């Protein structure tokens, strides 16, 4: 050791000036946030929790119609000119979409948010190239759903049994789909179907088709609501029997590729929603722990409870950060399948963990059907499958 002192100075580096990041979540659109808040306040009956726990009639059509009429879907769709701060239309739209999905994670146990996300981030997004359909979708007068999963083909969509057919001059599609979000309420169905006979193009393989349920007979398209434990009333099974095809969105060989590109977007936005759901459940758990008395004191006075909640809050913050980076990458057009898979996997694990711990903290009340944590746990199990299973996400992460 030495106590000698040098007056030498380190060589100086020429560092580039700091680049301030522009991001969808920064500088949130307060006007849009106010409009969403006003919408929620103005529709207490539509957003009543009980209505979204009733498997018979969750008011999906009414909600999408009202959101569209209020202009909230269109405002979250990339169009128009850059914002006053230079943000691109896409950046502005995704920033509003984050606000929309976050707000809807906080009402009616987050249940309506699933229907909203399916309409905006799945169906409408897949119809981006069809401007003749966009007006109705964004105005909420037309509803849409993606029908890819089959009873024996979930993650492995190469085993499709739904087939493209031909009846004279018109294309048809025949097969069974299930666990299709918003199916019981969909005007338009985007159907993934195998095309071994090259009806849609020069190649074989999965094609993506558009079916208008309003133009089909009840025999051609039969939709039945599924009694799943989660996403109550929101999913359905679909029987297609020579159902007429309105348009070929992607020909044989391109259908699955189209969806694989789309799923990057869907998984990132699902992550945004799942993280917001986890935050809502956590907030409710904190509120419950403040008010619930055990052994003469609020539950929150227990160090174990505070530590658990702190740990969960750290994890929520982490996954939110990952999701927002995912949205930035979407804006820049550089989000990879692996990054989106990482987000979706982390959010799926997070939501189930937060919901499970929140049920534990709430005790028997948390076990009650309709408690926010109980609902989130049921939905969380569904979200570990929907949009790509955890296992599929791990495989994509592995591929890098």
């Amino acid at each position, binding site marked *: *050791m*030495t*106590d000698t*002192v*040098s*007056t*030498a*100075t*380190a*060589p*100086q*580096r*020429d*560092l*580039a000036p*700091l*680049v*301030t*990041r522009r991001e969808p979540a920064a500088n949130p659109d307060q006007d849009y946030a106010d409009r969403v808040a006003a919408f929620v306040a103005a529709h207490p009956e539509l957003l009543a929790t009980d209505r979204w726990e009733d498997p018979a009639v969750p008011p999906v059509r009414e909600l999408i119609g009202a959101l569209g009429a209020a202009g909230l879907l269109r405002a979250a769709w990339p169009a128009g000119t850059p914002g006053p701060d230079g943000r691109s239309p896409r950046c502005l739209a995704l920033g509003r979409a984050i606000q929309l999905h976050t707000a809807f994670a906080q009402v009616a146990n987050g249940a309506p948010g699933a229907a909203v996300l399916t309409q905006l981030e799945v169906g409408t997004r897949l119809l981006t190239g069809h401007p003749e359909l966009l007006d109705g979708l964004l105005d909420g007068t037309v509803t849409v759903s993606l029908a890819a999963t089959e009873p024996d083909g979930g993650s492995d969509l190469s085993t499709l049994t739904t087939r493209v057919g031909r009846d004279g001059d018109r294309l048809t599609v025949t097969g069974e789909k299930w666990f299709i979000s918003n199916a019981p309420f969909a005007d338009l169905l985007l159907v993934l179907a195998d095309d071994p006979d090259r009806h849609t193009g020069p190649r074989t393989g999965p094609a993506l088709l558009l079916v208008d349920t309003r133009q089909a007979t009840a025999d051609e398209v039969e939709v039945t609501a599924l009694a799943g434990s989660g996403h109550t009333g929101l999913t359905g099974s679909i029987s297609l029997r020579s159902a007429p095809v309105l348009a070929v969105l992607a020909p044989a060989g391109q259908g699955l590729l189209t969806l694989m590109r789309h799923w990057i977007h869907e998984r990132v936005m699902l992550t945004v929603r799942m993280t917001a759901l986890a935050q809502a459940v956590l907030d409710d758990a*904190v509120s419950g722990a*403040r008010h619930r008395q055990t052994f003469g004191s609020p539950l*929150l*006075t227990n*160090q174990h409870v*505070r*530590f658990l*909640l*702190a*740990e969960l*809050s*750290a*994890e929520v*913050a*982490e*996954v939110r*950060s*990952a999701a*927002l*980076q*995912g949205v*930035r*990458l979407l804006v*820049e057009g*550089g*989000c*990879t399948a*692996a*990054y989106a898979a*990482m*987000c979706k*996997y*982390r959010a799926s694990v997070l939501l189930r963990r937060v919901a499970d711990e929140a049920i534990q903290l709430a005790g028997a009340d948390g076990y009650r059907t309709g408690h926010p944590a109980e609902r989130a746990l049921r939905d969380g199990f569904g979200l570990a499958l929907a949009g790509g299973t955890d*296992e599929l*996400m*791990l*495989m994509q*992460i*592995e591929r*890098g």
Partner: protein
Amino acid sequence: MTVLQGVRTGWFTPAQEELRAGLAAHLAAEVEPHIPGWEAAGRFPVREVLAGLGAGGWLGLRFPREHGGAGGSAWEHVVFAECLGGLSSDSVGMTLTVHNDMVAPMIAEGGTPAAVDRFLRPALTGEYVLAHAVSEPGAGSDVAAVTSTATPVDGGYLLTGSKRWVVGGLYADAFAVLARLPEARGPFGHVLLMVPFGEGVTVTAGAPTLGLRAAGVAGTVDFDRVFVPTEYRIGGHGLGLVTQLRQFEQERIISACRALAIADRLLERTRERLDQRISFGAPIGSRQDVSFRLSRLRAEVESARQLAYTAIDRWEGGADYRSASAAVKLRSSRLARTVARECLHLHGAAGQLTESPANRAFRDARLFSISTGSDEMMMTTLARLAGWDD
């Protein structure tokens, strides 16, 4: 498996990526090859390592140019921390972090011109080694409970007390010491002093530790009526604890970046090893269970990395980063340990050899949940910041 594309996109400038490449190449060439020997010897030539970094202009990159820094931002220190995490010895990483990201920032931000000249400038050329003497036998996480006492005297303070577990203490030329004032109470009753090693300062090696075996950890650093001039005080009289706590919030993010870089490197090395190692006729890495285990951890590392970058972004943007700092310190510390434990197992019997990098990483990583704010302190901080009263 590779680092996921997009995890650094938009956070770093091309100049910062260039900085990363240059620093990583320097460390790979000049430091990494010597690590097995240093670890076996139980010490490393910190002054030599720092001199190399100083000559390259890699120290104190975010400090003002007039203080000998490069006038950069916290992002350059993230690059520095991530490059340190690329080394297979956290004895080196932790010692250099203490020097560059725990003590040096306090001098740069709260030191007098005399303290800057005396301690910071030579520290940034690598000629002077800094260590941090805060913990005491009765004051670990509860830093306010320190009993080392700085008694005001004409022109300075007389410092008396005993510090424990000082990383780099056996190498240090000067110590940043948190001490209480004799009469004052509460949060405004401390001073932070820069104390050169010299008369009245006794450094004693400690008992062997699980990890960080080459970090020159001093078991005790005793101060016996050491006169410290007022101009070597960091921050105001009575504001030592406040200055220290603010610094903790920043250094925890940097520490998290190093922890996550370590986890990143371990996952990479483990994947490489498992792709080469054959069992039952196939590479172990080709087994789905192994791949899924690594992918789960990769997902956690990359999402935690986004929290670290978010915290830095808030810091640089002047926003409140306290919660993000505590959250990422907690997540990264636990994650580094989990990754190290899993990778140790996946290295099989070879990982049980103490000289194995996987074994060393497991032992070194355990400290993350204890040092620079224990996991329990991070959870306490998060709860308090959220308004969940004790």
